[in-house]
Structure formats: structure tokens, C-alpha cells
């Protein structure tokens, strides 16, 4: 893939390709996970690609992204390289951080993917600190904290929101509400009220959009980025979406009974990729044959990257004690 971040508003075609690429990467991870060569926990974003792509396509290359355990889509959407990502998941020396973090810590600072932290809400204040540094330096940059619906239950989210709002820092707080924290539904964790109202006491701009409509996510994110960049303060973005597969691992788990098959099918019917394809088809902008060709090219690139990662050497054990201190 070429650089995934652009300065102009991307075309629908571009959005589609971005989502498709992430989907194919993660479906391939799921398909090959049983080989037991990717020996680290994985948290797939299948079904949630629109949020990652819509937000990151609204950003500039120099903008900074901070993510969570579920970071594959954010990493790729921000322009992170596929081979170092897969090598990291395979635990190889060629991994983006040399096999030190695995799937939950994907990092590519040159592309603005600064850090992924798998403790819920832990990376949110890092994004605020990045924005504070930019404010002090007068830098024209936006920092983004991606997180899930459970993060707003953490005190550190509210502490971060309070400070960012107080100082009108250029931060986008992006809440991807996939309705569950592991197996526990939102209704068992939070009172019945729109998630967007969570920050009403923090005096910041709130925008929400259908998290499975990538164009709607992009529009909201462009507005948010402009607001934050122009010094008007942080924005809280809420995108409702749905994780198709299990919280951690490659499988589907609806048989466990924590959510219904009907609910899953309802969201499945709102697949962000299929939705955009239908929309493009209805306006006569979808070339099925061309898309098929693109998909095949993507899959070849992905398969090559998997082969690279699988065949790459493991890091030397002596590396384990390196980089404790700068």
C-alpha cells in the first residue's frame, strides 16, 4: 500500500480500499492463527474498520495517534507498514518493535502511530501530553486517542478530558463503542444515557456518527480535526460499531450466549465495507471487476507479508535485556 494518509479529502474509493485492506489483513490473521506461529493475544477489529479509516483519513501525516490493545486497524489506517506489523505479531526481530510488544503494542512513530497501550484508557493521557507539547511549541498538529466504550468508565479518561478542555488542547478523543467490554454489555456497566453525554460536564465539543458509515465518520473527523487544530479545544467523537469476532482471539463466539445471534446478524448486515460498496454501486461508481482485481493484488501483498513474517528470524535472547535505560 502507498501512504495511507493524505492531505486532501479522500475519495470513497480510497476509503473502501483502506477498509478492505485492513479487513483482508485481519481475516488472514484469523485464518492462520491456529498455526500457532502468531503466539500472542490478538484483538481483531473486523467490523470496526470504518472508525479507524474515517478518523485517520481526516488526519495529516504529522498528526499523532495513540491506541489500545485493539490497534491493528489504527496502525494500518495511520500508514503503519504491514511487514513490521505482522513480524511483530509473529514475535520476530523484524517486528515494528522487535517482538517486544506483540499485537497489543503496535508502534510506528515515523507514521505518527506513537504508541498502543493495552491497559484500558492508559494511552489517553499520552495523547493529551503530546497535544500539550504541541501547544507549547505552537505546532500545527492534532493528537488522537482511540479507545473503546469501557474507557469512559476509567477515571483517567475524565481526568484527561478535564485537562484537555481546560487548556483547549488539540486532542480528538475517539470512542469506538462496540457495545461490549469483553463479554459484558454496556447496559451492565453504564447508566442508560447516550455515550455522547459522558463528557457533557467537561465543556467540550461532541460529535457522533454512525460508526459503520465511513463517510460519516470522515465528515465528523474532518470537522473535529479542524476545530482542534484551530485552537478551539478538544473534541469527543462517538462512533457506534460492532466487533464481529471474539474479544481476544480469531473466532466467532456468539454461541457463548453473552450476545444474541440476531444482534450479531443485524450488525453484520451493516458491514461498513458492504455498505459503502452498495452506495457506490447505486450511484454507478463501483467497478466490480476493478475492485476484484484490487482485492487480489492486496491479498498477494498480504500473503507475501505473512510469508516474510513467518520466515523471519526470532530475536536473539540477548536482546531481552536491551533498552531498559536510554
Amino acid at each position, binding site marked *: 500500500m502507498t501512504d495511507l494518509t493524505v492531505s486532501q479529502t479522500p475519495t470513497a474509493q480510497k476509503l473502501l480500499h483502506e477498509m478492505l485492506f485492513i479487513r483482508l489483513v485481519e481475516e488472514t490473521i484469523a485464518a492462520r492463527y491456529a498455526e500457532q506461529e502468531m503466539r500472542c493475544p490478538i484483538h481483531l477489529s473486523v467490523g470496526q474498520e470504518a472508525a479507524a479509516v474515517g478518523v485517520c483519513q481526516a488526519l495529516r501525516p504529522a498528526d*499523532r495517534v*495513540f491506541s489500545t490493545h485493539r490497534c491493528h486497524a489504527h496502525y494500518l489506517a495511520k500508514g503503519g507498514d504491514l511487514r513490521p506489523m505482522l513480524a511483530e505479531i509473529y514475535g520476530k526481530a523484524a517486528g515494528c*518493535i*522487535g517482538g*517486544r*510488544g506483540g499485537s497489543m*503494542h503496535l*508502534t510506528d*512513530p515515523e507514521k505518527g502511530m*506513537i*504508541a498502543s*497501550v493495552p*491497559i484500558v484508557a*492508559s*494511552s*489517553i*493521557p*499520552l*495523547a*493529551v*501530553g*503530546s497535544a*500539550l*507539547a*504541541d*501547544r*507549547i511549541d505552537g505546532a500545527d498538529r492534532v*493528537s488522537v486517542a482511540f479507545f473503546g466504550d469501557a474507557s469512559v468508565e476509567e*477515571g*483517567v479518561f475524565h*481526568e*484527561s478530558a*478535564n*485537562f484537555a478542555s*481546560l487548556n483547549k488542547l488539540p486532542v480528538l478523543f475517539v470512542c469506538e463503542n462496540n457495545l461490549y467490554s469483553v463479554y459484558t454489555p454496556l447496559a451492565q456497566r453504564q447508566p442508560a444515557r447516550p455515550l455522547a453525554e459522558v463528557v457533557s460536564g467537561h465543556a467540550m465539543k461532541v460529535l457522533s456518527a454512525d460508526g459503520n458509515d465511513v463517510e460519516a465518520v470522515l465528515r465528523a473527523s474532518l470537522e473535529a480535526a479542524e476545530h482542534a487544530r484551530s485552537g478551539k479545544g478538544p473534541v469527543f467523537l462517538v462512533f457506534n460499531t460492532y466487533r464481529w469476532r471474539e474479544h481476544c482471539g480469531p473466532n466467532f463466539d456468539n454461541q457463548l450466549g453473552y450476545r444474541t445471534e440476531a444482534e450479531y446478524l443485524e450488525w453484520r448486515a451493516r458491514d461498513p465495507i458492504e455498505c459503502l460498496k452498495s452506495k457506490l454501486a447505486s450511484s454507478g461508481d463501483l467497478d466490480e471487476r476493478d475492485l476484484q482485481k484490487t482485492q487480489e493484488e492486496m491479498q498477494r501483498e498480504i500473503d507475501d507479508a505473512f510469508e516474510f513474517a513467518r520466515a523471519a528470524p526470532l530475536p536473539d535472547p540477548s536482546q531481552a535485556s*536491551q*533498552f*531498559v*535505560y*536510554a
Partner: protein
Amino acid sequence: MSTAISELRTISTGDAIREGLTEVAIKNPSVIFFAEGVADPSSVYGTIAGLSKHIGKERIIEMPVAENALTGVAIGAAMVGKRPVLSFHRVEFALLAMEQIVNNAAKAHYISRGRHRVPLVIRLVVGRGWGQGPEHSQSLETMFALVPGLKVVMPTYPRDAKGMAVAAVEDDNPVIMIEHRWCHYARGQVPSGYYAEALDGPRAVHEGKDLTIVSSSYMTLEAVRAAEQLEKLGYSATVFDLRVVRPLILDRVFASVARTGRLMTVDTGFRKFGIGAEIVSETVVNCYDALKAAPVRIGLPDHPTPSSRGLIPGIYPDAARILREAGTELCVDQDRIEAAVAELEVQRKGLPIDVPDPFFKGPF
């Protein structure tokens, strides 16, 4: 010491820290400050007072009462090039920030295979006296020292404190700087101008041949006092001010124990699982053949520290206890030790147990 010394003045450790932080902030525009009440009339016991006369207000950041997030904010700023200095009025407030300290500050460099650096200083103050009570007086340095990736320093003397504050800010790693409130009052000669003291391990502050004492922070002042009394009895002790808890560098201690054959540790924190436990363990392994007696550890007893001055006698180690333990270690006649202890008590002139002893005046 990195630069020429222009002038020596006698000032307190608290003022020396302020000077060091001010000097390094003037020199390096990346240095930023966070504290609750960062520019209030107290300014963290005066240790960060007057900064706005020297640096821009945008670098002096008022910290909402949100320790975990603001520690994370400082870490995030450090990851993109700032050198934040966070000051907490008590160690205990940092417990709210342990998640950020342990997961992000300590590990960002490691996880990123060296791509990220976290040049961050977190200053924590240990309270003592005037009824501070169980949650305003804890010396929890070993909780931080447990974590690879953190540096933990405990300056004692004014000259050292200024230079170590500068070195901590210059360091590219997260440095937890634990300051004992009673050390803030200790006075000594301090050079003016900019200088750094290397964070390179213990320093001998008193020389002797019969016993090696390793003490940290305020306890060093008590240990030196005990060592001076011991000399009147014809024995001598080398006292090391530990200075740096992590990385723990004990070569100088091993060399000393090889000569004296005896080791005593004195902590400001708990005796059990304290720094002393680690020092004794390492020393026994390294100097087993040289030891003439079992090492002795002194520290706080195995319970919280209550508020009332009626409850604290015997809780805090002092020069008298160090002297008595040294006497046992060296098989000194008990009557002679008790006479030396009585002399110490006369020197205190009936000062209450819960206020700092003005004995600790420089030049150190």
C-alpha cells in the same frame, strides 16, 4: 561536577533543589513543570518558587487534582521531546499515578526498542513529624525501585540535591526523586550556577574502618551523627549516603565491607522488604568471606506510622538506635554506649520528638 564553581553559599536542601531546577529550566527550553499549586504562594515548599521570573508561563503548568492523568500527560509530552518535572507534595499522591508510572514511563523506551524516551522527573516528598500520620509519611522508594526502567534517587545534602536535581532533569530516563521533608531543612554549602552531580551510586560521607553503614536520605544525617559519637569510643564507621536506589550500584559498599567486615543499613522506609534487605542480600553474596558479623538492618517497624507524638517514640530510627546497634555489632561495652547515647540526648536539648533537629547544619 561539570562546570566551574563561582561561589559557595550556605543554603538549605530545599533551596538548593529550587536553584537546580531553575538553572536547568533556564538552560534547557524543553523543561516544563507540573504541580498542584505550581505557582501558588507555597510552590511545593518553595522548591519551585519564582520560576516565572526565568521561564515562560506556558512551561509552568497548573495540575488539576488528577495525578494519574497528569502523570500520563507528562509522559506523553516527554515521549515527544519535553522534559517534564512533576512535583507531588507527598509520596502517597503518586500511588494514584502508579499505572502510568509503571506501565508507560518505565516501559515506553523498552517496548519501543529505544524509539521512545521518557526524560521525566517525578518529585515525591516524604513527610515526617507534626502528626503527619499514616498516609502523609510513607517512604515507599522500594515500590518504585522494584520496576526496571525507572531510576530512583534520594538526595540528602544541599550540594548533592542541587546537582542531582539537575542530573535527574538531564537524564533521558524517568527519574523518581524522593525528597525527605526534613532534608529540605538541612543546610550546607552549595555552589551557585549550573552543575550536575552524577547519579552514580552511594557516596562515602564519613570515613571509618570498623563498620560500614549504608543509609538513605534523612537517615544519613542520623547515621553520621551516630558515627561521630562512635569515634569518641575509639571505633569508627564509614557512612555511605545511598543517593541512588535504582540502579543500585554497590561496588563501593562491597569494597568497604571487605575492609570493615561489618554492614549496617538504615532506611527511612520499612525494614521488611526495604532497601536494606536488597543491600544486605547483595553484600552477603559478594562479601561472604569478609563478614565478621551478621549484617544488621534498621528501618521502620512492621506497622503504619500513627499521627500522635505519643505513639511515635521508637518508630523512627535515630542516632541513638544506630549507636546502640553499632555497639552490639562491634561488641562495645554497653555502659559506654549508653553514656554516648546520653550525650546525644543532651545535645537534643529536650527537643520534641516530632520536629527536625537543627543539629543538621552545614557545611556538609
